[in-house]
C-alpha cells in the first residue's frame, strides 16, 4: 500500500514538476512570477486537442503543433505586455499582476472558444499496466517520468552549457549590464518565453493524455501547486522544481490516505510553508551572498 502511494505520488509529482520547470525557467531568467503559466498550460492542452482530435492529425502532430503555437504565445505575452514593463523598469509585482491579467484573458478566451465543460483527450503512451509485485504502474506514468527528465536535462543544458544560457543568467542579475555586453536582451527573453511556453505545451499535452481530460480551468490549481513546487525546490533551480514536484506529489498522496481528500490541496502549501521556515530559499536553494 505504502509503495503504491509512493508511486502515485511520484507520478503526480512529475506532473507538477513538468509544469514547475516552466515557472522556474522564466523566474530564473526574469525574476518574474509568471502567473499566466497555468493558463498557458491549459492553452497548450487545447491546441493539442484541436490538432489531435478535432482535426484528426493524431497526438504526435498535436504535440508538435502545441509546442510551436504555445511557444509563440509565450513570446507574444512577453512582447505585448512584459517588454514594455521592463523598459520602464517597473516593480516585479506590476509584472506579476500583468501576468494574472493575461491568465484571465487566456482562460476566458479558451472558455469562449471551447466552452467551459471538460472534454475527452486521447490517451498517450498507452501500453497498459506494468506490475511490480502488487504495485500497479501505468505505462503513461513511466512515459511522463521519462519526458520530464529529458526536458529537464535539455533545459539545464541550455541554461548552464550554452552561450545564450549564460546571457539568460546575466540578464537576470543585471539587465543594464547585459545590454552593455551587447546581449540582445529582448531576443533572449523572448527565447526564454518560447521555452517556457513550449514546456507548458508539453506538460499540458502529456498530462491531458494521462488523465484523458481537458478543460479551460485545468491550469489554475495545477499551476498554483506547481508554482509551490518550484518554490519548494528553490525557484530558478530547474532540478529543484523536479524535487519540489515530487515532494508535493508524494505528500499529497499520503495526505489523501491519512488526512482525507479534503486536505489534499492544502498539503502542497503546508509543506511549502514548513520547508520555507526551515530553509528560506527552498530545498536546493542557496542563500544569496550579501556583500556590503
Amino acid at each position: 500500500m505504502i509503495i503504491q502511494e509512493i508511486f502515485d505520488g511520484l507520478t503526480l509529482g512529475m506532473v507538477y514538476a513538468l509544469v514547475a520547470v516552466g515557472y522556474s525557467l522564466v523566474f530564473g531568467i526574469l525574476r518574474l512570477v509568471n502567473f499566466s503559466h497555468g493558463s498557458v498550460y491549459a492553452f497548450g492542452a487545447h491546441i493539442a486537442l484541436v490538432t489531435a482530435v478535432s482535426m484528426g492529425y493524431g497526438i504526435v502532430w498535436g504535440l508538435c503543433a502545441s509546442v510551436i503555437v504555445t511557444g509563440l504565445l509565450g513570446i507574444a505575452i512577453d512582447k505585448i505586455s512584459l517588454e514594455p514593463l521592463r523598459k520602464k523598469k517597473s516593480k516585479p509585482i506590476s509584472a506579476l499582476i500583468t501576468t494574472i491579467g493575461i491568465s484571465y484573458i487566456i482562460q476566458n478566451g479558451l472558455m469562449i472558444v471551447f466552452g467551459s465543460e471538460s472534454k475527452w483527450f486521447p490517451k498517450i503512451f498507452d501500453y497498459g499496466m506494468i506490475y511490480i509485485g502488487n504495485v500497479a504502474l501505468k505505462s503513461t506514468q513511466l512515459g511522463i517520468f521519462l519526458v520530464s527528465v529529458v526536458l529537464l536535462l535539455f533545459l539545464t543544458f541550455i541554461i548552464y552549457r550554452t552561450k545564450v544560457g549564460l546571457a539568460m543568467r546575466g540578464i537576470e542579475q543585471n539587465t543594464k549590464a547585459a545590454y552593455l555586453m551587447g546581449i540582445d536582451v529582448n531576443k533572449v527573453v523572448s527565447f526564454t518565453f518560447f521555452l517556457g511556453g513550449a514546456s507548458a505545451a508539453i506538460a499540458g499535452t502529456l498530462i491531458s493524455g494521462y488523465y484523458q481530460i481537458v478543460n479551460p480551468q485545468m491550469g489554475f490549481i495545477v499551476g498554483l501547486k506547481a508554482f509551490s513546487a518550484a518554490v519548494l525546490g528553490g525557484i530558478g533551480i530547474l532540478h529543484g522544481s523536479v524535487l519540489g514536484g515530487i515532494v508535493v506529489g508524494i505528500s499529497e498522496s499520503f495526505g489523501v490516505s491519512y488526512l482525507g481528500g479534503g486536505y489534499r490541496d492544502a498539503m502542497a502549501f503546508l509543506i511549502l510553508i514548513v520547508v520555507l521556515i526551515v530553509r528560506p530559499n527552498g530545498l536546493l536553494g542557496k542563500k544569496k551572498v550579501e556583500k556590503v
Partner: protein
Amino acid sequence: GEKESDTVKVALVAPLTGDFAEYGTGFDNAVKLLADEWNEKGGVLGKQIEVVSYDDKNSGEEAASIAERIVGDKSISAVVGHFASGVCMAASPTYQEVGIVEISPSASHPDYSSEGDYIFRNNSLINVEAAETLKIASEVFDAKRVAVLSVKTDWGTSTSDILINDLAAEYPNLEIVGHEEIVDGTVDFSPTVTALMENEPDTIIVVGMYNILGPFTLQYKDVDPDINLIGFSNAYSEQLIELAKEDAEGICLPTIFFHSSLDEKVATFVSSYEEAYGSIPNSLTAQAYDSMGLILTAMEKSGSVDRETIKNELYNITYDGISGSTTFDENGDALKTFNWLTIKDGEFVEVER
C-alpha cells in the same frame, strides 16, 4: 400606481461565465426557450414575457449584488436562479426581505428553502435522491460492499453525510466500507483510487457531477474493471459518456428527467432545445425549464404578476412538467419521482425494474 407595462419580466441569474458556465448557460437557454414558447402562444395574461439574464459567476458576492439590483427593479416579477446553494443563500435574504419569489433549479442545501416563504427550489431534496442511489446499489447491483466518493461542496458533503449516516442503515445486506472526499476540479484520482481499493468495495456511489464521475471511472476501471458505479442526477450528461467512453458502460444513476423518455412533453422539449442550441439538455437544465414553467403558471392561475400573489399561488399549484409532476411543500421544496438510468452501448437507457 405604476403604469401598466405590456411585458412581464422574469429574472434569470446563473453563472453565465466562469467555471460553471455550462450549467448557467443551460439555465439561461431553457428559461428563454420556455418564454419563447409561451410568447408564441400569446404570452402570459396577454403580455409578452421578457427574460432578464444576469451573470453571477457562481460567486456569492456577485449574487448578493445582483439580488439588490433585481429587487430594486419593480418591473421584475420573479427570479429563476442561482446555481450553487451557497450562492443562492448569499442572495436569498435579499429576495426574502423585499419579497420576490426565487426558484432555484439546483440548490440542494437543506437550509436553503427555510430562508423564508419566498424561497423555493425545483430540485429534489438530497435525502430523497440519496435514498434512490442506495436503492440502485441494492436492487440493481445487489451490492454488499459499498464505498462512497464525494465532492467537497455543500451538496456533496451533505449528501454523503445523509447517505452514510442516515440512510445506509435501512439496507442491512449492504455495508458502507469506505468514504473518500475530493475537492472540486480534481482530475487526478490515483491516491483516492488507492485508498478506496484498500477496502475492496464492489460498488462505489459517486457524489459528484459528470466531470468527476467521468475521469474517476476511467482511472478506477484501469485498476478494477469490474467495479459497479452509481452517480447522481447531475452527472446525467452526454459529457459523461464522452469523457469515460467505453468505461462508462454500466454506470447507473437516478434522475427525475430523462431526455429519451417516451413522454411526449420531454421529447418535444429535447428536440426543440437541441434545435435551438445544438446540444442535449441535462437534468438541471430541465429543472430550470420547469422552474420558469412554475412561475408562469402561477401568474396565469392567479391572474396577476404581483410578487406576493405569485408566491401564494406557488404553494397551491401542481405543475406537470418535463421533470415530472411538481408540488411544493410548506418549505418551498419540490416533491419529485425518479427514473433510473444506465449507460448501454454508449447511450443512456432506462433501467428495467
